[in-house]
């Protein structure tokens, strides 16, 4: 197991700085690292799912080299209250990572030799056990817990079982904040997986493997009910301090108090900060079924759609870029161009940090070609 000091240094880049090596920040997408992204068509959550995922992971070079003997943290997406649906559709079909995808992923991680698998999420306004959040929406948590040896859940919307939060440092002092305090589970792992739903996002343009990490921020610190100077004990409210800058997170001062108080400016920067500070080793974006127009049932007029696709990669920027292309968007788009009509592109911001490239010319796409998997979110009819 990595020592805490070496892992922390790795995450923050302090190791390199301490060695006197100046960190260079590629300014262009063409300089950020490129990697392979796998695309698979998968129409249902039935028996085709696990083989589809397994093949994708093989196409990426196999999971064993990434997870064997390791503690793997898997951040899933359970945004908003479980009591809200798009129409009559259960959340798993429209805006939450489907439990069968979670179970299949856990199974394959276990099969590849992961020593421990910890499923993480910060569910809306609660520190309740993840199992209870799942039971409340008719899921059977045992299907996930039993998918592999040593699977556990942790609610990361608060301190949880640790004595303190873990601090993560984005490069160059961060776009929005110099550091971010997260639940210990984001540090106490060797491998970090972002496993999410393929969706648009009202504030951020798209929510894919990178934006999924926004939910790692605990509302005990980043929520509207958080303590002023110290974290509150329990989470209250949503992350409006980040969206609107109406107050600071507990004990934090943002880098530039004069920066715009608009979500389209602030959220992409926090997303980029987070994925730079807490790297993603495996990004999985499931769009077997999902929703259009945004990220949750609060988006008026949203409906179920069936892209029938999964995208996965070992670089979150590249994986999100390919996902965007599948969704019918240009991953190189900037503010003012769909899907970033009202926001900055967190892909560009992360690329500037050197996290990865969004340039499709540099990304090797394996499996189903993008053109065959394409499902333009804005023009395809709903299911």
């Amino acid at each position, binding site marked *: 197991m990595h020592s805490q000091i070496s892992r922390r240094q790795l995450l923050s880049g302090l190791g390199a700085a301490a060695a006197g090596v100046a960190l260079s920040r590629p300014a262009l997408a063409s300089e950020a690292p490129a990697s392979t992204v796998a695309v698979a068509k998968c129409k249902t959550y039935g028996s085709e799912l696990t083989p589809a995922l397994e093949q994708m992971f093989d196409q990426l070079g196999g999971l064993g080299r990434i997870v064997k003997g390791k503690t793997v943290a898997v951040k899933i997406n359970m945004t908003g*209250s479980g*009591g*809200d*649906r*798009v*129409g*009559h559709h*259960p959340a798993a079909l429209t805006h939450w990572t489907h439990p069968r995808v979670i179970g299949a992923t856990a199974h394959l991680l276990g099969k590849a030799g992961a020593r421990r698998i910890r499923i993480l999420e910060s569910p*809306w*306004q*609660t*520190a*309740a*056990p993840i199992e*209870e959040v799942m*039971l*409340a*929406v*008719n*899921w*059977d948590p045992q299907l996930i817990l039993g998918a592999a040896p040593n699977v556990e859940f942790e609610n990361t919307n608060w301190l949880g079982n640790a004595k303190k939060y873990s601090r993560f440092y984005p490069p160059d002092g961060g776009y929005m904040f110099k550091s971010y305090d997260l639940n210990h589970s984001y540090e106490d792992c060797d491998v970090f997986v972002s496993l999410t739903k393929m969706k648009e996002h009202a504030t951020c343009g798209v929510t894919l493997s990178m934006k999924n990490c926004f939910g790692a921020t605990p509302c005990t610190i980043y929520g509207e009910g958080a303590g002023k100077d110290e974290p509150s004990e*329990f989470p*209250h*409210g*949503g992350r409006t301090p980040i969206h609107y800058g109406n107050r600071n997170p507990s004990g934090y001062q943002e880098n530039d108090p004069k920066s715009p108080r608009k979500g389209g400016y602030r959220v992409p920067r926090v997303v980029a900060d987070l994925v730079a500070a807490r790297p993603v080793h495996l990004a999985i974006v499931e769009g077997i079924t999902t929703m259009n127009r945004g990220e949750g*049932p609060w988006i*008026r*007029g949203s409906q179920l759609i069936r892209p029938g696709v999964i995208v996965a990669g070992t670089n979150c920027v590249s994986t999100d870029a390919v996902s965007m292309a599948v969704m019918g968007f240009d991953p190189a788009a900037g503010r003012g161009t769909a899907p970033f009509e009202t926001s900055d592109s967190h892909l560009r911001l992360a690329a500037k940090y050197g996290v990865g490239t969004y340039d499709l010319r540099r990304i090797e796409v394996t499996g189903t070609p993008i053109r065959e998997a394409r499902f333009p979110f804005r023009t395809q009819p709903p299911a």
Partner: protein
Amino acid sequence: MRWPEDWRDPSLLDLLRDTPINCLVVEWDNERPPAAVLEQGRRLGLRFVGHIESTAGRAAALQSAQAAGLDAVALDNPKEAKLPAIAWAEKSKLPWSSGAAVFAAADAVWPGIPSRAGERGGPTAVPWVDANGWFLQLARTLAHGKPVWLATAPPQAEAVRTPRYLLAIADACAYGGRWVITLDDKLRASLAARSQDALDEWKAITGAVRFFETHREWSSLAPYANLAVLSDFSGANEFASQELLNLLARRGVPYRIIEKSRADATEWTGIKGILFPDEQPPGDDLKKKLLSFVEGGGTLIVQAKWPAPAGLGATSDALRRWNLYAIGKGRLAIAKDESQDPYVVAADAQILLSHRNDVVRYFNFGTMNGYYTSAAGGRRAVLHVVNYTTRTSSNPVSITLPRRYEAARLWRLDTDSPAPLEVAPAEMTGVEIHLPPFGVYAAIELEAAG
């Protein structure tokens, strides 16, 4: 109905022809109705209740009520009356043991989403909802099944549209109570002037009343729940226990109410969890019964002053707010803090009992309350849904029920006959029902296999 004081013309009683309204509450302190109104009303088969609010001159008022031949009086102290009496007082002052024939809460809330709305409500992040269902459930328990009325008036400062009247009726009737129809100034004047718009509104209002009269039998069904709230609901425990009932309802957690003094006589069959929110532990007999419940497999949730069981180590719940003791097959959960916010207690109760034991799950239900009732034996149930926005939701309601019902029918206020609903298997266990759009109220009649 509350007969408006300024309706002096007996011909206005024609508005009540062919409606289910059979009882008029008339103010008896000052502006009493003319004798002609009383006479014409009796000819139409109506009964009259004189509301006496003032204590000054009460004896004279009671005497004149008797002399005028009123059928009953409504006042805060029924024992003062020789006529049949309705106990009419603020909720906390209702004399449950007075022997009154009917109980009327003078300070019930006007149901709906308060006008500071649009904001998300505090802890739940769904809108604040003013609702009387929790109170009616409690009142019907304390009143030993006698009728309970809500004597709340619509706000006079704003125009009150028909759906708000329908909501006031549904908010009361769904829980087995009755709203004493009281008109706002505008509708009162328009009806008196016989404007067509007002007559149409009146038809809708009385139609809603007729709907619930037609389904009066539903009031006899008991709440279906596996969580009970046991308290004296009074004195030092009044606020916390009653707020708990309100918040549990808002969280969609069904409950049964056990009044502490009658706990021995109450059947606890089917109960998996008991919330005892009273500050002080109960006396020895009740404590023994509660611990026996735990030994048999139940979960008992109590406040911090409950003594820890001797010789047993405590574990902590996941949120570290409760000390948990394994006793027999069950668990005793004792709050760690002495003054728990009722919101926290309501939320934690659901977790302590576990969502695994939910008897109903609601989806897209943020502005609604549900009241799940069942006939003895469980083969038949009625689930009432009251929608406090009064507008049809853009995201329709789904309901999951672990009980395996085979058939379901939907009743709405604006239809004479029910519509069949599809009953589909739910993801894990039980069934799922999707509701079509509805306005203020819907009732789902459910039937299980034999």
